[in-house]
């Protein structure tokens, strides 16, 4: 493994950052098992004893609703002999975790509750008063507007500081509800990509790729959309979601990327979610009533296409979609795909995020299929000896930096990748 400074240059990176298992292990240590990692939404576990298992780096964890209504994040491991305590992906464990091997029992916060035949431990270092007889917990757990994060290290910035301006992902999602809250729709699609996780993160703010990669779907949807219009019908809004992918290079170039410290980023651009129909009018009225006209207009008019929380979350806040990466190895990554329901809005408004979820983010996606294909081809290409470097030169030198935020000169600037790798270097050198 080369030193980090030789792997990452301002305008290009060495191909091994995508392929080297040793670098991957360093990432697990320096990023995934250190930074704040998304665990889930509070509404996934509404009742006492509800749990959801989650992977943080290489650690199998349990997010559980405790007796005190607090959320705890525990290692899914019995302190006795190491057996995983939860065998299901999610469920309710009642008031206790019971180990399936020797019936050690634990409170929902992980504290030891019962050791069978406890007298057998008399005179040994194990016993009720030894904290290592309790389930190990994540070092820190915090939530922001209902979204739960954990960090496996005690030191480091607060969640709020970690998120920084990328908080807008959750603010924009929740603010679109007249009561300021969302709840999870309890379906999580999981898709495996045969590529390094970085492909996904770069792709999400890569405005040059949609009209190339997704043109087949954009063109097909646009054609049927026009056909319906010619017949005098109003095509459902979801045709627009798909046909937008085939917009011209110039259109995509007119958006902008805002690159935040720590690798987070925002792709601006407005999805046209305010058609002039009765459902929208009622929704806008409810928003005016809740927040006043000025603030409601600010919430509804935000120019946000995607927000990235580096290195693992892609949030489409205006459509309440969230994708979370769980890296498996240098060349394999799992994405978990969720969507949320705005509280206090009509079914008609919910359907907008539902149809986006079905058509773009479900396993039958007509969009992500071609991304996955690109990333798998990309991974295989970078594993080859066909070249040493990956280029991020487009619009290099023309970004503007203000208060630590890098604004791209055009939508298609590869400033996104340059900014992500600048954050990556800091993590990997242990200075973040």
């Amino acid at each position, binding site marked *: 493994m080369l030193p980090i400074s030789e792997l990452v240059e301002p305008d290009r990176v060495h191909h091994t950052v995508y392929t080297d298992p040793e670098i991957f292990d360093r990432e697990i240590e320096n990023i995934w098992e250190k930074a704040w990692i998304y665990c889930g939404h509070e509404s996934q576990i509404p009742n006492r004893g509800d749990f959801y298992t989650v992977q943080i780096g290489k650690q199998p964890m349990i997010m559980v609703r405790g007796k005190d209504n607090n959320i705890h994040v525990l290692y899914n491991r019995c302190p006795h002999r190491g057996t995983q305590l939860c065998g299901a992906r999610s469920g*309710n464990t009642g008031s206790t975790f*019971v180990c399936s091997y020797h019936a050690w029992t634990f409170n929902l916060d992980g504290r030891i509750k019962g050791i069978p035949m406890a007298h057998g431990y008399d005179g040994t270092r194990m016993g009720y008063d030894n904290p290592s007889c309790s389930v190990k917990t994540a070092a820190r757990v915090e939530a922001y507007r209902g979204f739960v994060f954990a960090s496996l290290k005690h030191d480091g910035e607060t969640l709020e500081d970690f998120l920084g301006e990328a908080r807008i992902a959750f603010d924009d999602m929740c603010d679109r509800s007249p009561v300021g809250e969302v709840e999870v729709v309890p379906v999580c699609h*999981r898709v*495996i990509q045969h590529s390094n996780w970085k492909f996904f993160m770069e792709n999400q703010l890569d405005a040059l790729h949609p009209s190339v*990669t997704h*043109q087949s779907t954009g063109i*097909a949807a646009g054609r049927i959309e026009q056909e319906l219009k010619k017949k005098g019908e109003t095509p459902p809004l979801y045709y627009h979601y798909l046909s937008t992918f085939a917009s011209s290079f110039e259109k995509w170039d007119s958006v902008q990327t805002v690159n935040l410290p720590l690798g987070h980023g925002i792709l601006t651009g407005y999805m046209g979610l305010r058609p002039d129909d009765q459902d929208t009018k009622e929704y806008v009225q409810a928003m005016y009533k809740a927040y006043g006209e000025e603030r409601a207009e600010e919430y509804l008019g935000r120019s946000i296409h995607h927000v990235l929380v580096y290195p693992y979350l892609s949030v489409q806040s205006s459509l309440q979609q969230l994708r979370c990466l769980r890296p498996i190895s240098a060349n394999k990554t799992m994405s978990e795909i969720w969507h949320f329901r705005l509280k206090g809005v009509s079914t008609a408004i919910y359907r907008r995020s539902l149809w986006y979820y079905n*058509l773009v983010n479900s*396993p039958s996606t007509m969009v992500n299929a071609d991304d996955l294909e690109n990333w798998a081809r990309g991974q295989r290409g970078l594993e080859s000896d066909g070249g040493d470097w990956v280029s991020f030169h487009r619009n290099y030198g023309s970004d503007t930096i203000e208060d630590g935020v890098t604004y791209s000169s055009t939508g298609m600037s590869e400033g996104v990748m340059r900014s992500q790798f600048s954050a990556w270097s800091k993590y990997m050198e242990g200075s973040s």
Partner: protein
Amino acid sequence: MTESRLRKVLLEDVVIFGNEEASTTGAQSIAPDHVARRAYRDTELPARASVRSKMELQQEVEEFLFYQSELLDGQHWQAYIDLFASDGVYWMPVTLDQTEWLDSPSIFAEDKNLMRVRFERITHPNAWSQAAEWSLSHVLGNIVIESEQNDEVHTRARFHVMELRRDTVRHFGGTYHHTLVRQDEEFRIKLQRVDLMNGQAPYDFVLQAWL
């Protein structure tokens, strides 16, 4: 010394089962019923074949479903879409207990227009993911006619699909529920419900066409 102790231990009369006095055992004695278990498959039983005497209808349904599979495996997409009634829907719900697709997420929920979008997409020369070799092979079985009412026939069948993509084979299995209607003497699909057995397992890649 060791030998005689071992001999003694092995001759001890200890019975570790059949203890009638103990009311609880193992984990139960530590944490009885710590989880409220849901009743085992406390759902409606599948419908029995309703038209056992009508062999002709049974044969007609089987022939139709087999033909549908051949169209999918042969990638005769337009002919497959033509099997659907004008208001027909191809639906793959996420869960078995789902009853509608308008207000809850589905894996597929496509009317004929959306099916045409998918058809035109996968046949577009720049559908990049289609560059890899790709084919499907369906096997159907357990075909049952659940009911026949007012020109609507409700059928149930099991499918097993193998998919080859690039160098990898995947397997999909599950149940079809078809609502068939008659149009010009021919069956048309009003609803094809596809309950994929492994629909919530992680997907290695995605589903590009109808199963």
